[in-house]
């Protein structure tokens, strides 16, 4: 079993990924954690404890965002890996790919405002009982930026009920006072959902970018709490 100091990260690169170096910097330079890049043709990710699918425009978002990436060889490896309890974190495009691959339930739609949106948002921590959020305080507010054109999370009624019943909603958009209102929602996602996990809690997807605010010089370092949670080990 991996201990915190030996938790090994892998960051997958698809053609078109563009946030992999940001994630690498946050983990390697800011947090001092061992990280490697994983080319999308890789067929085995067993040597890592946590695999990250970074943001970007894999395959140019052709067809549907994430639709092509999910057929890459690495995704089969990832499904295996997750099955065996490996940790998987999908950020933005990474979240979209996890949805397309069926590792998380639901789908992603175009932002309700029809344009790409890049801005800081406030997020309420709904569930600290996951490896990705265990260092956070339940109900606390994180300031983390988003940058996406298709971040409106959707799930059918039944799926939504299951998500809530099983405590799988991890982060919600909220006001600076912590109220989850339509005004606080930048993309129209269902119930202001910004991040979810699977039932087993070893796979998480979120639209906001914690790797973009892990260093105070960039305006907020609330993103660190995600890495700190992971680095606590199991």
């Amino acid at each position, binding site marked *: 079993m991996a201990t915190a100091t030996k938790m090994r990260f892998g960051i997958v690169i698809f*053609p*078109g990924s*563009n*946030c992999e*170096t*940001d994630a690498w*910097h*946050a983990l390697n*330079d800011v947090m001092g954690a061992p990280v490697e890049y994983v080319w999308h043709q890789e067929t085995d990710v067993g040597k890592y404890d946590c695999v990250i699918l970074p*943001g*970007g*425009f894999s*395959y*140019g*978002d*052709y067809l549907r965002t994430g639709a092509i990436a999910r057929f890459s060889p690495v995704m089969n490896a990832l499904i295996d890996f997750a099955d065996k309890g490996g940790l998987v974190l999908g950020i933005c495009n990474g979240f979209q790919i996890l949805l397309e691959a069926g590792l998380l339930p639901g789908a992603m739609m175009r932002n309700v405002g029809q*344009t*790409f*949106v*890049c*801005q800081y948002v406030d997020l309420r921590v709904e569930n600290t009982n996951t490896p990705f959020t265990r260092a956070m305080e339940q109900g606390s507010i994180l300031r983390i*930026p988003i*940058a996406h*054109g298709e971040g409106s999370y959707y799930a059918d009624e039944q799926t939504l009920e299951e998500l809530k019943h099983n405590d799988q909603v991890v982060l919600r958009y909220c006001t600076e006072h912590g109220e989850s209102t339509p005004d606080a929602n930048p993309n129209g996602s269902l119930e202001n959902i910004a991040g979810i996990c699977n039932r087993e809690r070893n796979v998480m997807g979120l639209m906001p*970018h914690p*790797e*973009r605010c892990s*260093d105070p*010089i*960039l*305006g907020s370092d609330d993103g660190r709490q995600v890495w700190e949670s992971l680095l606590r080990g199991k």
Partner: protein
Amino acid sequence: MAIEARMWHELGLSDEEYQRILDTIGREPTPTELAMFSVEWSEHCGYPRSRPLLRLFPKTGKYATAGRDGEDAGGIEVAPGLTVLFKMESHNHPSQVEPFQGAATGVGGIIRDIFTMGARPIAVLDPLRFGELDEPLAQYLFRGVVSGIAFYGNCLGVPTVGGELRFEESYKGNCLVNVMALGLVESDKIATSRAVGAGNPVIVVGNSTGRDGIGGASILASHEFGEGEEKRPTVQIGDPFTEKCLIEACLEALASGGVVGLKDMGAAGLTCTTCEMSAFGEHGMDVELQKVPRREPGMEPWEVLMSESQERMLLVAEKEREDEVLAIFRKWGLNAVVVGQVTDDGLLRVRDDGEVVAEVEAKALASPPVYELPTEEPAYYREVQSADLSSFSVPEDMGAVLRDLLSSPNIASAEWVYRQYDHMVQTNTVVAPGPGDAAVLQIKGRREGIGVTTDGNGRYCYLDPYVGAQLVLAEACRNLVCVGADPAGVTDCLNFGNPEKPDRFWQFKRCVEGLADGCRSFQLPVVSGNVSFYNETPDTAVYPTPVLGVVGVLKDVGHHCTSGFKKADDVVVLLGNTDEDLGGTEYLKRTHGVVTGKPPALDLEREKRVQSMCLAAVEQGLATSAHDCSDGGLAVALAECCIWGGVGAHVRLPDEWSHLRIDSRLFGESPSRIIISASSANAAKIEQMAKAEGVPVYVLGEVGGETLTIEVDGEVPISEAVGNLTDIWRDAIPSLMSQ
């Protein structure tokens, strides 16, 4: 096929130019050769009309420069061994025709100019100009251009960190879409575009070649827009995903050491790259067109040579490393095909299925004629220079004037735009679009930082091209020192009308002269640039609009500053002085409906002293905020400081200014002025330092409360709730765009 006059006229060549071709090659050209000359010698590729004047620009300055003459982008050393390369380009005509793709491919093109030199692209800026925003055409173009830039830049993962918005009647029929890109590279790893080494393979990489944009850059950018002309087929289509893969593959290939020379295919595509790489390398090339990957069947040789299909590069590899280099591109899913080889006879030989369709000396092809065009001072110039501004009445309600200025799209919040741009990717953006006078980028692992801004002012340049150009340069530099960056280098994008009209060329000549003298005064090299002529319709020419991109260096990126007031009880200090400067102002245009007068007078020595003082204050951590006065003058600048700070201020204008008109004091656009807020102890230090340096300095008042109150001559012409000003400023553009 016999060559007829009709053919060279249709290609945009004059009879004199055709004669020159005959003289150069000593025989009649083949049709393919004729097409090659026509694009390589066009204004957009060859710069025949602007080259003599562009030589006036200084190439050296305070900071060491990098890149070589004739290469795609130059730059400056920002830290020991580290160079930032930068360039600005225009995509005006294509954007007027097809705003989304015109702007998107503009981004693609300028980014290629950066990574072709081995630099990783780190930022984009977009200074944009359209007609008045209450008109449907301007709204359509604006929406399309911004979407296009977002589409391309966001997908590439290059943050768009700054830009400019200007809306003037003058740009109605000719929008100006200028895009600047920056890249970072180790100074000793800057790649070249020279083709050398006989026998080395010549390789086409990237997208396949189609008929897009054939003659586009050359034809669109070398002539005015006529009435009702349908130019849509000549606008190229952008594919940012392929370009992203190209960036990675090219940088990997360059790092492998197997690449001899690399050049991007932009205007005049394959013709330009084969000819210029050969000429620059003092070698030749033998190229087989049928090997070039096509996306359409039945293309003629001249079509393949003139195509402007995007996302293609031409590469010369070391012969022994050919397979290795090709494998890198294929790994990234890109076409990579050997189409020929470098030769040592200096000739560019083009074959199609075995038949030689063109064979010319590369250097001759790459040597367009140079024209010294006549200039003539235009009639309007005397009029505007002698306009009597004292005849304009002073408004009663200054608060109303201020609110109106804040609602002007030239001044209002540009958040509607930059929210659509990923301005954070690459996690280097320390000061993002909006809160600072310039963008600030960190360099990971280094203490130094990069400041960058773009600026232009068509009105000032129209009223006085020489002074106007210098005012633009002064403002760009002033914006940089406000964030704590020392101006280091300039790239220019010169947008003008038809140079064959002497009054337009006069504007061009005077702007270039003003810029050259200004750069020398500021000790700034012009490292790269672009000229866009023929921004004209039968109705009007655009204002002469040189747009500058200026890059500055922060010694310590941790010592940067933004524009908003931050703390109640901080003291508000003004560096600089105010004069009677209403000519060409936003206020004169909005309140009195005219663009006339001399632009504000510029004292370069005072400007430099004010900037130096501000930079010292920010570097020493004395300034809590710094913001320069520009459009809308002092009152607007103070309002902006309050808006960004979410706090009010109470200021009193100096008695020394009481000989000036009250509207000049509030809304005049005297240059060389910076508003600084600081704790009272720091403000005292700043005042002391300023006086010692001979920099005019005034303590205006304090930060605090929820109102902006400006006292003048014992009265209070402005007392506005900051919340209200913020709403007006923030909603101006969104409400126009939601119609």
